[in-house]
């Protein structure tokens, strides 16, 4: 039951088949474990409710405490149709309830997703509370207020030759189990689809997910609507299960119970909420009845929950998974990365020479073409800024920068700390919007555009501080970046298979080889050495095959050996691509760049070939002689 990884090594449909088998076996086994049929049915409803929530929380990282609003909405719409409006068909009513919940979810999401993190959690709590009050008072005429809606009928299915009636207990079980099965099959498709990949990326690093070209707001809203649809259906099934739609469905306790069950079972697993619900309901029955604790069983639950969050953050399924890995890890010792192997006693210089020799032996991966080869015939500069300025209050970070880079050029940018290089770069990628001035990229005015749109046009950046998707593997990281180019910034291919996307695996594989990480493709980022992370950082920018690549201090913090490797890497990717590099390593930059621009105190000081820069008195002045060392090295 591992739905965590994007690229599953399991045979196709194994999880689905096991789920079906499990659901079929349950009525024959659980009665022996003292599970009442109604408890099992309830677990299924909570489990189904939780599938959607897990996509929102476990996969996208959005913790909502307001799911009760959507659960109640779906439930009351279906119950109203069946009890008050005289609607005859139960399954259709459930579908309508689900759709209404999804639509409401869309509207709620529009508001709640204006903010992230704790703001999002607070807003969802507030919204859910409003729904509760609205159900109780203004809408009491339709919802029965505090009495709820009694008399919700159970479904029956006319198969032509026979009619299946699902009533209660084990007789209702097949219907609920079928709903759950369909729910899990769809959810498995979603989390393995390109959308599922982007959702994980948003959980891990929303800023980078946007920077590689995904419309993260759209995808978050998608996850919210998916969760709402699951909640709506589950709410409707609750009414069917109890033959009564209780107003308690709308309470904060409902949302809280869902959150707790998901955290207990294990988030990001899809099956966690089902397991969590089983634990919750079993604990309740056991502590209340068998142990005679009465109402204070919740205290035990609270303590168990706190301990669980403390020690077993990925819940029961996560704990079992870690244990399994631990046991297996002991059996087969993992291969250590042989990244850092400095021979003691060697000077930096000797080491660098040795590294150069080794790098020279390695086969050079063919450079990956930049996209839009047609546009490479575009005349004039690929990027141009006029009068670009940025003020922070009275502080001038950049003033009146006129800057142009030719098609296919490699440009270096240097300048002492505080010269405004990073602000300048952020303006070029539209992370920061200029106070004045204009930026044109490939002849198009991009001033004021979003990072995502600019990346979609083919301009992206590798960051000074690594911005990776940490809990994902190297391959998954690059897949996410490549998807942005192959699918555009937003597409709802919820049921598509990643493996079916044309060109994806080739592009990812190519990038892997280019940044020399092919051997580490299935390693999680958190286990990479620093140099490897640095190369992946460049790889993320490369995987969307940009026509203009900005590199913010790609060599920072690297060992001499890593520097040599990276310079070689940068040289190879610069073929057929325009690059702008900011770095403090002058020697490397002079080797790489055709022209150098020097920024000083927020302005362009000089611009010229590396040789001109080396000889320039102003540059030497600005660096207070710092250049000499590098020049003579």
């Amino acid at each position: 039951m591992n739905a965590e990884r994007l690229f599953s090594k399991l045979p196709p449909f194994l999880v689905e088949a096991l789920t079906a088998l499990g659901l079929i076996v349950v009525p024959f086994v659980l009665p022996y474990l003292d599970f009442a049929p109604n408890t099992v049915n309830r677990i299924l409803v909570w489990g189904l409710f939780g599938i959607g929530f897990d996509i929102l929380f476990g996969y996208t990282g959005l913790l909502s405490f307001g799911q009760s609003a959507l659960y109640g909405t779906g439930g009351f719409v279906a119950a109203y149709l069946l009890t008050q409006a005289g609607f005859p068909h139960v399954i259709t009513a459930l579908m309508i309830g689900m759709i209404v919940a999804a639509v409401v979810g869309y509207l709620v999401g529009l508001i709640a997703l204006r903010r992230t993190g704790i703001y999002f959690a607070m807003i969802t709590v507030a919204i859910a509370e409003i729904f509760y009050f609205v159900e109780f008072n203004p809408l009491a005429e339709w919802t029965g207020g505090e009495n709820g809606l009694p008399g919700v009928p159970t479904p029956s299915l006319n198969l032509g030759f026979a009619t299946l009636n699902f009533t209660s207990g084990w007789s209702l079980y097949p219907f609920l189990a079928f709903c759950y099965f369909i729910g899990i099959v769809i959810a498995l498709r979603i989390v393995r689809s390109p959308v599922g990949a982007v959702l994980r990326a948003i959980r891990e690093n929303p800023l980078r997910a946007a920077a590689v070209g995904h419309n993260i707001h759209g995808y978050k809203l998608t996850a919210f609507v998916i969760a709402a649809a699951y909640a709506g259906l589950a709410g409707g099934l609750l009414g069917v299960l109890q033959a009564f739609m209780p107003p308690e469905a709308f309470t904060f306790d409902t949302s809280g119970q869902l959150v707790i069950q998901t955290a207990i079972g294990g988030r990001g697993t899809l099956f966690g909420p089902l397991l969590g619900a089983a634990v919750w309901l079993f604990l309740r029955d056991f502590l209340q009845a068998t142990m005679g604790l009465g109402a204070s069983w919740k205290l035990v639950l609270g303590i168990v929950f706190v301990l669980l969050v403390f020690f077993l953050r990925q819940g029961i399924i996560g704990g079992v998974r870690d244990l399994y890995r631990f046991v297996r890890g002991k059996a087969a010792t993992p291969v250590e990365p042989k990244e850092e192997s400095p021979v003691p006693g060697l000077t930096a210089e000797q080491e660098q020479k040795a590294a150069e020799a080794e790098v020279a032996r390695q086969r050079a991966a063919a450079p990956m073409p930049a996209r839009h080869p047609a546009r490479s015939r575009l005349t004039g500069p690929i990027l141009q800024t006029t009068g670009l300025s940025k003020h922070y209050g009275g502080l001038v970070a950049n003033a009146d920068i006129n800057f142009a880079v030719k098609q296919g050029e490699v440009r270096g940018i240097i300048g002492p700390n505080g010269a405004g290089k990073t602000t300048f770069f952020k303006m070029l990628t539209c992370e920061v919007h200029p106070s004045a001035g204009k930026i044109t990229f490939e002849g198009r005015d991009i001033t004021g555009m979003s990072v995502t749109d600019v990346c979609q046009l083919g301009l992206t950046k590798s960051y000074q501080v690594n911005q990776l998707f940490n809990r994902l593997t190297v391959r998954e990281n690059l897949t996410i970046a490549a998807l942005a180019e192959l699918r555009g910034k937003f597409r709802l291919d919820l049921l598509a298979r990643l493996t079916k996307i044309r060109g994806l695996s080739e592009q990812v594989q190519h990038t892997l080889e280019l940044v020399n990480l092919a051997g580490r493709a299935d390693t999680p980022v958190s286990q990479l050495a620093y140099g490897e992370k640095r190369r992946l950082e460049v790889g993320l920018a490369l995987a969307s095959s940009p026509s203009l690549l900005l590199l913010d201090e790609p060599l920072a913090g690297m060992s001499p050996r890593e520097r040599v490797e990276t310079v070689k890497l940068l040289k190879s990717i610069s073929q057929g691509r325009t690059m702008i590099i900011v770095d403090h390593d002058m020697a490397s930059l002079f080797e790489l760049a055709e022209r150098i621009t020097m920024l000083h105190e927020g302005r362009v000081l000089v611009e010229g070939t590396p040789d001109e820069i080396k000889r320039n008195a102003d540059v030497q002045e600005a660096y207070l002689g710092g250049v000499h060392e590098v020049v003579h090295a």
Partner: protein
Amino acid sequence: MITWPNFLSQLFNGLALGALLALISSGLTIIYGTLGVLNLAHGAMFMLGGYAGYVAFEATGSFIVAVIAGALFVGIVGVVMERVIIRHFYGRPHEDQLLVTFGLAICFVEIVRFFFSSLSKTVPPPSLFSGITSLGVMFYPTYRLAVVGIVAVALLVLFLVLYRTRLGMIVRAGIEDSTMVDSLGINVDRVFMLVFGIGAMAAGFAGIVNAPVVSLTPDMGESILVQTFVVVVIGGVGSFPGAVLGGLIAGEIISLTSMVNPSYAYVMLFAAMTLVLMVRPHGLLGTRGRE
């Protein structure tokens, strides 16, 4: 029917509720602003303050003792909670912090339910403020007027702590840029503990001061927590003036809408929050420091 006296008395109700919300929200917001932890057990702190005060009142019969006991007890609970649990969560994701404080809230509520049952408890107002006062056009419960005064004093004390002491300066700096404060060599560990204690104390103090107005139940903190969230969203996370402004706005919205139709009070509150989110996503007086 809406009459002048009715309107005025609702205006005062709004002021009393608003002042109370302002105090509770200030506690929540300085904890979040400084520590980066949204305390979902903050409503439970409010409830605990009420119950601790109730116990002290039953034992001594003195309202003053009850207020001091309520505030101090919750302050201590806050410090212990921070030392034992919360500090292990500073480095963990927001979701984990939310989950653990949510779990703690359940524990607090259930412990109180265990000892005091679900039945409501009442604390009478002190004799000094009992009865009603004539405000010219109308009569108004004296204690509710006193609540406004008491809470105003508490807010002033909090203001002085935040704006006139070294600790307050560190707290405000931490809200602006927590990384910078860390790197300045300030003993953030001790500051965090104090801030958590003070924030919890604000909620506990509000809990016991409010006890004569509404009866105590174990889950009374929940709706207060929700209102506090709205206040913080309206005012801006991490902003003390924002919490005060947001509290007063929320209090008046709830009271004045209740005058027309009580069932729409929350709807209007929500509408106000949505409006603020649309126009000023960071709240009326919010900073961009914490995200």
